């Protein structure tokens, strides 16, 4: 290491490595206190926990994931809530995952929700059809733009969480492959919109 550019590079590299290591030591505030508000049972609904399978565990890693089946009247919903404060990459684009699992996204349409909007995915694989709805929530607003969520999370990481509360991904699917009236979801499961 003799030349001036080499010395500057070395100093920059050392600083970058130290910063990179130090950044990982600062945990981000998570959304668990908000997600805990989502009741397991209440007036007109009940639920049971669903354990994650091995693939899901490896994909989600350190992220905190809630997976429950909610029974509302005669309908059963699988609800997955992913808090990516400990593993940002677990908060993903559900459409990408469905495609990876062999589903084709035939159509996407918005779903009006309290304080924002979600997105309904119409999926098919062979003769099988299915629908799912998802949104990202930071407790104040709901939206379904993946890139926007990623940039919010990146900015949040950069500011140690000061820029906004932790966003979570909420994914809801009917258990039996029905096509439910999604517009009724806020009335059926109001707890989904309290975090």
């Amino acid at each position, binding site marked *: 290491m003799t030349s001036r550019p*080499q010395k*500057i*590079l070395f100093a*920059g*590299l050392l600083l*970058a490595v130290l*910063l990179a290591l130090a950044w990982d030591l600062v945990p981000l505030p998570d959304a668990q206190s908000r997600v805990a508000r989502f009741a397991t049972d209440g007036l007109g609904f009940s639920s049971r926990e669903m354990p994650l399978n091995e693939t899901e565990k490896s994909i989600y890693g350190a992220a905190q994931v809630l997976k429950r089946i909610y029974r509302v009247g005669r309908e059963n919903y699988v609800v997955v809530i992913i808090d990516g404060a400990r593993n940002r990459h677990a908060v993903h684009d559900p459409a990408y995952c469905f*495609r990876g699992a062999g589903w084709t996204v035939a159509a996407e349409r918005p779903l009006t929700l309290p304080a924002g909007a979600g997105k309904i995915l119409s999926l098919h694989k062979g003769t099988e059809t299915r629908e799912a709805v998802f949104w990202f929530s930071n407790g104040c607003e709901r939206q379904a733009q993946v890139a926007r969520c*990623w940039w919010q999370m*990146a900015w949040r990481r950069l500011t140690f969480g000061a820029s906004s509360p932790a966003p979570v991904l909420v994914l809801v699917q009917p258990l039996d492959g029905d096509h439910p009236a999604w517009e009724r979801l806020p009335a059926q499961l109001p707890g989904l919109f309290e975090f």
Partner: protein
Amino acid sequence: MKTGKPLPLVELAVLVFAAWQSLDLSVAWRHSPHDRFGWLALLAWLTPLALRLTDRPRVPLAANPWLLGSAILAGLLGQLTEVHFFGHVALVLAVAAWVKISWRLLPWLLSAVAWMPVFGWWLAGFSGWTVFALRVLLALTGVFFLRPKFKIRTEP
């Protein structure tokens, strides 16, 4: 490898740092159907550089400090924001730093997206195998532009 001078350790350390920031690639290539075999696109993309290194004249290697500095910044940004794409950009810059700047470099640099997971995300509407074919095609196109007359950077 007889160079007559010691290897440029600082420059190589930057390359290692950039590779560290791109470790997620192995996870994507193993688990994501749209990124499967992306490593083949990386190999294709690196081929001209590897071939040139094996038949280069025995003179000391040198790297562009500006590109290496940019690689450090991109890698750090990727780490601080947890956006893997910046780490991949860091790797591209850290590798490109060893090639002499010329107009041939630009299409080759751009074609690096062929081995990145962001490529699979953009083309998620296509099947995994179609995305793989497009990855290899794009990487080879970049190689086609770079291959004929590019030069490895050496000390003056």
